[in-house]
């Protein structure tokens, strides 16, 4: 009977120990915990292990997982259907530099590239008399007002992407910024030149092709820059 009572007391002591262990490990003073750990081999071993792990964990370097780790996690989540991700043209172009969440620029890019692809392969799908875009054009001369819906959407997308780029431009490292700026300047010059030509020759399909190609290329460069922005 006395033996049984001692066992019950020991069991109660282990339960009490477990209840107070967390607080004890977090720095709360508790003589009961340390006293029980001295008396009970099992709980003493547990406490010793946890204290050792805690000490070792404090010394561990704070590692930042490599981009590949994030990439693998993202791929796994995508494979399991937990997230959906669409691999964009620019993820193939410069994915290594993407160290920030890229959903917004990627979506914008996917949209722009989709438009470009449709435009390039389907030609002028539906030419309609459309009012001028709500947003102001990216360059001094307005885009032609007889663009197809697809082409007009591409122009608007480029404009939106350019606004995002301007907002993030400061985060780019100077050398990357210089390269992007040079590329965008070239493309802006191309666009401006095409727009000027189209004012003189509104029905020149070759110039129109160059214009839309320049917009598509600008979308690609802007998407790359937006992905690059967070490094």
């Amino acid at each position, binding site marked *: 009977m006395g033996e049984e009572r001692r066992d019950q007391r020991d069991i109660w002591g282990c339960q009490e120990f477990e209840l107070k262990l967390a607080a004890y490990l977090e720095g709360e003073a508790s003589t009961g915990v340390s006293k029980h750990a001295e008396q009970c081999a099992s709980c003493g071993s547990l406490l010793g292990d*946890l204290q050792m792990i805690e000490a070792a*964990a404090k010394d561990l370097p704070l590692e930042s997982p490599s981009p590949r780790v994030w990439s693998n996690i993202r791929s796994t989540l995508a494979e399991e259907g937990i997230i959906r991700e669409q691999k964009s043209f620019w993820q193939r172009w410069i994915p290594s530099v993407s160290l920030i969440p890229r959903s917004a620029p990627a979506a914008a890019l996917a949209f722009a590239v989709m438009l470009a692809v449709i435009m390039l392969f389907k030609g002028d799908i539906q030419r309609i008399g459309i009012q001028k875009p709500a947003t102001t054009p990216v360059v001094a001369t307005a885009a032609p007002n007889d663009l197809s819906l697809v082409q007009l959407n591409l122009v608007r997308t480029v404009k939106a992407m350019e606004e995002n780029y301007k907002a993030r431009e400061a985060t780019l490292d100077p050398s990357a910024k210089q390269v992007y700026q040079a590329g965008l300047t070239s493309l802006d010059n191309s666009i401006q030149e095409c727009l000027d030509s189209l004012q003189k020759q509104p029905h020149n399909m070759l110039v129109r092709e160059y214009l839309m190609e320049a917009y598509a290329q600008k979308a690609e460069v802007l998407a790359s820059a937006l992905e690059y922005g967070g490094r």
Partner: protein
Amino acid sequence: MLRLKRVRMRSGAKVVGALLLIPAGLLMAQGPGQTEKNIATTATPRVSISNLAGKVTVRGWDRMQVHVTYTVTSPKVAVDTEQVPIKGAANKVHFTSYLTDRSQTVANPVVDYIVDVPSGASLEIHDPQGKVKINSIKGDASVDSLGGGISVADSSGHLSLRSVGGNIEIIRPSGRVEAYSINGNLHFVNPTSNRLRGTTTSGTIVYDGDFAPGGDYILSDYSGNITVLCPSTASFELDAKTVRGKLDNQFRLVRRGPAGQSFVPPGNAIFGTQGSGQATLEVTSFSGAIHIRQQ
């Protein structure tokens, strides 16, 4: 009890974390210095290098092994090496340069790679700010850069090369070639490829070589000049046009009426056949000059 479980889980997670970090640490090299590794591979492994900045040199050799030497110059940059499968001959090898602390901007995150790979390897290289040089590779190669130049010699696989601001030079390719740039120059030297496409916006394009029978060649520029230098014996069908640039041609072509000629001023388009017209050559520019010349 719930709290204890939480503590035990938290502590357990730390143990698992510690155990995971040990083997992972073996694959990572941090801080400045040079590292050399040998990895046994199949004859045709896929090798990828994802770099932040710095030179990447890849050479094909006759061993079934990847030998890499990389030099890290910043204490805030590390390289992750991954091979698949982990044991035995790898069919995939990945090298990834990354910032150890992404909350800070690193001014010069340079890692220089020199990699020897089996000649049958295929490559995927991302190096935004550094020169990429590839020699003697039979597999496909995809290279993306931002401001760095790209140079590929003696390749026989499909080449897909892109650089926003860097020049692209391709010497003696025999597989399909695609080269894109915005401000960079494109230079093709003695290609034997039968599919080749080069596009740039403000850079120049120089094609120096003959055309493969049945080959299809597209060179497109906006404001840069395009020069095609080919032997007098070359056999091709030419479709060349420039909206505002000049066009000169040294070949005596059998002229045909080009499609869309009305969109360019008289004299700014040529559509004709040289020799038996075995290859197809399309050259277009908006304001750059086009020169079709004999070597």
